[in-house]
């Protein structure tokens, strides 16, 4: 689809209330549109990529996000002080916090996303289920209200039939979510889910849903402008998940055909139109092997996996968000939306797939991303950057396009083989293994794929590699001992100290 190249407006300066790759993505869209950007950063992110790329950057507090990226008053204060007219929340953090959207509106700032009413309604998963039922969108069996005591939960779970899912009412991104195989594991799962939900979302409320085996996770991307037009951009297949967190996404879905896409797309548009939704949103569905689809939830924000939709539709979704937030009409209808080729995204995280995907924070000592035709890397890091322990381990997204699925898989395999990262463990070897897996190649996907195909993650390191690392370290210690002269008694003055000394070199003002 060719969209008229219209500059988003009317704002000229925007605050990005996020970090990492998504902050970088938003800064890029703003730059493309001639909008100046204001970054915010915690103490752990002083040297982060988004801080380096933005036009201005302001500290917002200590490393823990509860004291920095989640402090609404501080973000509003920075936006005002910097003269920003709009705020983009990205994903995670405050992106689905109605209070933040309201605070922006009250401060006279344009919130790039839906209104606080829609966020509050759809962000409450139980209320969203009621809204979906009212809009005649099929639902998965489960509770429509948060569960109270463990005894009540046990009774409901028994009625639904195991396996069940314990889900945070205000959840997202797999946090506060546990799969329970049988009654014995319910109490522990409730405890962990409540604790995770309370620390991640400030509310420990959880509800129960029946877990459907062999399902696929397929979601519909929707755009709704301020003039009543609601258009969907087709589906994304997000079945490749680990611990209920998506790790590989693609568009379109190998399950989909024009009829299923039309049916799911219409259901998604119906729901968002019914709640008066505006801006970009995603309606998530589960699809069973008989192609029956069930409403899962609505994500009232830009999604991590949005690039695969961009590559098959030719639309810049962040730019569309900015246009809608500025009051512009979409300027195209459902029949103008066309799909071309196949896109796949792999989330490259600082986790060790050979050790149960344990987080692997640290300094990235080498970073050699792949390139070439139809290869896109959305990264929030660079060589020498630190992956802090305080945030999500996502470092980058690798996205490729091909004329069909087979070509996209081949291209992804090539790009993964080219991707060099040192200093931290990454999920690159895991993605490479998935690209070679016969079920993945054949498009036989389900949300249980990772657990079934890679029950313990990837095999542990071969002992020869570990031995080579030990030998390399030993040689380094020997070489260091031989090469380094005894430490001087007085440390050499720092070049910074020299520069600041009267008469020393100075930076010219202005």
């Amino acid at each position, binding site marked *: 689809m060719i969209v008229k190249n219209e500059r988003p407006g009317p704002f000229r300066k925007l605050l990005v209330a996020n970090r990492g790759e998504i902050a970088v993505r938003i800064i890029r869209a703003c730059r493309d549109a001639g909008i100046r950007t204001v970054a915010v950063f915690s103490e752990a992110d002083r040297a982060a990529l988004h801080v380096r790329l933005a036009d201005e950057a302001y500290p917002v507090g200590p490393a823990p996000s509860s004291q920095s990226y989640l402090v609404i008053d501080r973000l509003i204060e920075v936006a005002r002080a910097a003269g920003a007219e709009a705020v983009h929340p990205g994903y995670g953090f405050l992106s689905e916090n109605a209070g933040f959207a309201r605070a922006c509106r009250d401060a006279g700032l344009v919130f790039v996303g839906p209104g606080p009413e829609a966020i509050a309604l759809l962000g409450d998963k139980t209320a969203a289920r009621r809204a979906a039922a009212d809009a005649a969108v099929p639902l998965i069996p489960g509770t429509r209200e948060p569960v109270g005591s463990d005894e009540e939960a046990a009774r409901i779970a028994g009625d639904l039939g195991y396996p069940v899912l314990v889900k945070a009412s205000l959840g997202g991104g797999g946090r506060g979510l546990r799969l329970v195989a049988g009654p014995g594991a319910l109490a522990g799962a409730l405890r*962990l889910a409540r604790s995770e939900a309370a620390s991640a979302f400030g509310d420990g409320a959880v509800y129960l849903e029946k877990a459907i085996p062999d399902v696929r996770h397929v979601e519909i991307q929707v755009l709704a402008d301020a003039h009543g037009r609601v258009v969907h951009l087709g589906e994304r297949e997000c079945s490749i998940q680990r611990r209920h967190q998506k790790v590989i996404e693609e568009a379109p879905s190998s399950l989909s055909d024009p009829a299923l896409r039309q049916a799911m797309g219409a259901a998604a548009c119906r729901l968002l139109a019914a709640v008066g939704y505006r801006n970009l949103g995603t309606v998530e569905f589960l699809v069973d092997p008989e192609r029956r689809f069930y409403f899962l939830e609505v994500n009232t924000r830009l999604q991590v996996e949005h690039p695969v939709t961009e590559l098959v539709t030719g639309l810049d979704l962040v730019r569309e968000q900015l246009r809608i937030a500025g009051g512009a009409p979409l300027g195209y209808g459902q029949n103008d939306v066309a799909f071309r080729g196949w896109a796949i995204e792999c989330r490259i995280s600082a986790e060790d797939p050979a*050790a149960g995907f*344990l987080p692997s924070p640290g300094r990235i000592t080498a970073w050699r991303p792949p390139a070439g035709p139809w290869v896109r890397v959305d990264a929030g890091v660079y060589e020498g950057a630190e992956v802090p*322990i305080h945030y999500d381990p996502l470092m980058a997204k690798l996205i490729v396009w091909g004329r069909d699925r087979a070509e996209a898989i081949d291209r992804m395999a090539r790009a993964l083989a080219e991707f060099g990262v040192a200093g931290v463990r990454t999920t690159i070897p895991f993605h490479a293994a998935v690209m070679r897996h016969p079920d993945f190649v054949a498009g036989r996907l389900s949300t249980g794929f990772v657990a079934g195909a890679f029950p313990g993650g990837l095999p542990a390191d071969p002992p020869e590699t570990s031995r*080579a690392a*030990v030998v390399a*370290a030993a*040689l380094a210690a020997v070489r260091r001992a031989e090469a380094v002269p005894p430490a001087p008694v007085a440390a050499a003055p720092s070049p910074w100290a020299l520069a600041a000394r009267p008469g020393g070199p100075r930076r010219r003002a202005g």
Partner: protein
Amino acid sequence: VRVLVTHGSETIPVEVERLDDTGRFRVRLGDGAGAWLEVEAIPAAREPGPATLRLDGATYVVDLVEDRGDLVVTIGARAYRLRAERPDRAAGGGGRGTARRGGQRLIAPMPGRVVTVHVRPGDRVEAGAPLVVLEAMKMENEFRAQSPGVVTEVPVAAGQTVEAGALLVALD
């Protein structure tokens, strides 16, 4: 030259002998019982470690840098955080990484925040009993006992931030 290389909770003694000035060495891992291995190392320009290592017939491309006193060695997609010390300097260092016979030692595999400590010294635990919940990168990771035992040491408390390699719980 003897070097002690520590990886997580494991300490491996390595004997290194230089064969010539072209980067050829022989090394022996373990307590003198293992076989000598020939090594050819091509050093990187500015880093202390080798850039390419030929060991036992295989060639490894190595990225090695120092980070906060540790050596971070990356071979292919595998990054190792190691500590390499000469024994004379390591003597009396204690604490981190000192191997001990018997019992289980639960070592933090990554830095993080201790969310919950389920046990106290003196507790008897079964295999699979939850010991500690460690939060890192927004996920809570529950660590369980691998075999039954008695808790002898719990040097951490809930709310505390720990480094990778820190002892969380010791069992006998």
